[in-house]
């Protein structure tokens, strides 16, 4: 066990936990932010994507100790009122089917738009190309990222 200090969605946390525990389980079970999802646990699906210091990371393989001192943003902290341009675009185009993968999709897209506010179709496919949506919402995700980019510019 070790003391780990994290800043999650602007709030400071200090916990005595197994330093090897992946950030995903810390978020879901220690501090009960369950918007970040478990899909595979081996960095293959993207359901667990969060931001660490502004960059998209897969929290299922990130030991919580590696996030010590970092700023973490989860879907719950992406915007205060659920009105991030991506969240709005996702709703406007009615992207979700079961919805389970969508937090990971949105967090991946948010990181893309931060680095590249005017992504081309190829940029979008490259950035989003490793997030699995088992329901097959890819067509609308592609459009929603484009729409959000337009909204932001």
């Amino acid at each position, binding site marked *: *066990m070790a003391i780990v200090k994290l800043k999650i969605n602007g709030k400071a946390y200090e916990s005595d936990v*197994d330093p090897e*525990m*992946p950030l995903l*389980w810390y978020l*879901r*079970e*220690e501090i*009960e*932010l*369950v*918007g*970040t*999802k*478990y*899909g*595979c*646990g*081996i960095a*293959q*699906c993207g*359901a667990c994507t969060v931001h660490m210091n502004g960059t998209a990371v897969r929290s299922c393989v990130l030991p919580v100790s590696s996030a010590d001192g970092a700023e973490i943003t*989860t*879907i*719950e902290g*992406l915007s205060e009122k*659920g009105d991030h341009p991506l*969240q709005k675009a*996702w*709703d*406007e185009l*009615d992207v*979700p*089917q*079961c*919805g*389970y*993968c*969508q*937090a990971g999709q*949105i967090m991946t897209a948010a990181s893309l738009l931060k680095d590249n506010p005017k992504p081309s179709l190829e940029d*979008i*496919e*490259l950035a*989003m*190309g*490793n*997030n*699995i*949506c*088992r*329901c*097959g*919402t*890819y*067509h*609308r*995700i*592609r459009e929603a990222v484009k729409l959000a980019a337009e909204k932001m510019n």
Partner: protein
Amino acid sequence: MAHSRRNFLKAFSTVSGGLIIGFDWAANKAFASEVIKTEAAALNFNAFLSIASDGIVSITSPNPEIGQGIKTAFPVIVAEELDVDWANVKVLQADLSPAFDRQLTGGSGAIKHSWERLRKAGATARQMLIEAAANKWQVEARTCETSKGWVSHSSGKKLSYGELAEAASKLAPPTEVTLKPVDSFKLIGGFIKGVDNPSVLTGKPLYGIDLKKEGMYLAQLIRPTAFGMKLKSFDASEAEKMPGITQVVAVGNRVAVLGKSTWQIMQARKKINIEWEKDGNLESSSDHDKLFKEYLDDTSKAQLQRKDGDVEKAFKEAAKIVEAEYQCPFLPHSPMEPMNFYADVRADSVVLAGPTQTPGRARASVSKLTGIPEDKITVELTKMGGGFGRRLDDGYAIEAAEISKATGKPVKLIWTREDDMTGGYYRPAVRYRFKAALDKAGNITGYYSKGVGINTGNPMRQDNFPAGAIENLLIESYDHKSTITTGPWRAPITNFLAYAEQSFLDEVAKTAGKDPIKMRLELIDKVVKNPVGKITYEPERFRVVMQTAADKAGWGKKKGVYQGFSVYFSHNSYVAQIAEMEKKKGQPVLTKVYAVTDCGIVINQSGAQNQIYGAITDGLSHAMYGKLTFKNGEPLEKNYDTYRVIKMPEVPQVEAHFIDNGIDPTGLGEPALPPLGGAVANAIAATTGKRLYSQPFNMADDKVESYL
């Protein structure tokens, strides 16, 4: 989050004074409606529509939502007939309750069953509101109109539904109601967003895996490493000492690990020494390959499914015979949210909660397991992170109850992804043989098919097209009993049979020297004029989707575009698809899929399109990559690193069209999946000349991967 039954009834009483209609939402029995004044009366009905004095309309949805959009589509139908502003409609998820007769989701059947009942429920309430207004104004009801939650009179008087709700609730419900003419729908057929979007997009706890209850323990189960093995003994002494681990117990054939954190349980699992022993056949995919061929050749291993005319004679007299075999592997469902369930088995009651398509079945099974009567068992329904048929099973709910019973603790069982992929209930592996006899003019005079499956039941759909169009036809099957467990998978059977049949018909057309669509249309003509035997489909609706697809895609008219056609009828809907490939720098690329669907009236354009995109993506993913391989009973693909699922850069464009024919709506969760494999295989054959006889395509031909 689902409302508990108590909350549900509380919600009910806060609108007392408003108008509440109980109606039969999903069952087959006749429609019933009346104004409900007491909670006891409310329990006799199947769903609720209530109008509060502020005009907010609440609709309780009893059916589980798995991503197919039912929680949005059903209330839309009610709201249409009620004539209310959609923005003022609130949708609530019900738990399993004796108030509802048939709380299940599956088989793309819900809309078909409920269409008229939902409309009548809305129309009944609307009529009562009109009557209340007419009474107040001392005018005739027929001189009043409604619009967006208001009743108005030609004199200019207006009252809102909220203002009228109390008076309306005191009226006797009409015995007869007039439904809106289909062509006057305002809400139905529009682009309506999912009612859960706001919660989904902000990460609210919704799913079973998110559920947390007071005093709850987490649990995982270690199952036998292979089908055909069982538990012999285990040693958990090291694991039990690990931090966060509460208990390790044998539960039937499995070992349960209880603790306070998922991560700690995952670690402890690795430290438990388990000995398994053989309990049945340990089968490998290579054994199945051999069995398939043996059974296809063995005439004694055949169960007759359909026989028309004299097939033997037809083949004897044939000018040409076309023959082909197609094989498909086992598939896991792999919904993004792995299986999980909460159970608290107490001395004389049980609390269950979690993602299930069949809550009633879970309750019945847990009642059997515990000996606790069903009325002492509650089931809370959570949203589901996908299902694809997987959550029709009650196995994981029973497991949760078994662990709770064995440990005396409230537990939430969570399967890891590996547990999920290796846990059984698979789409069965099947191999089909097809044979067609052609006369000199290229007409099909005889048709034979036999399917051999592993725990498949009947892998044929013997009364579906092309049955009915062919004079001499013989369809048979054989089922091999295996230790590997199987279950329904999105569009059961047809998810693979359609590919095999539609690929075969393409080959027949080629041999006959006919255009594949024209040949199918000729067959449809025959069915219309002179159907042979029993058929399950309407030939005219088949014709329309085929012709429309040909028109929309410009069949045979595009330069440099190679097209593959496929059409299928399932779950009462008709879908024709045309896949298009182009050569880019000499390299074939799958660019587009056209889908023309006749599911009758489209309730929600957005939801309907989502189902088409989703089914095509799902169909392509599994036709291309999906394969679960067995070695001595052990599934080799255990997670998404080896079990490949399609990703965004690989999906072609999709153009979804719907036939606007005003016919009562039918299913949409499944029907667009079956035709996809055939359309793509036929497009690949058109582009490269190579036919693909087994799925996944990328293993039948490694070049295929580069086509996406």
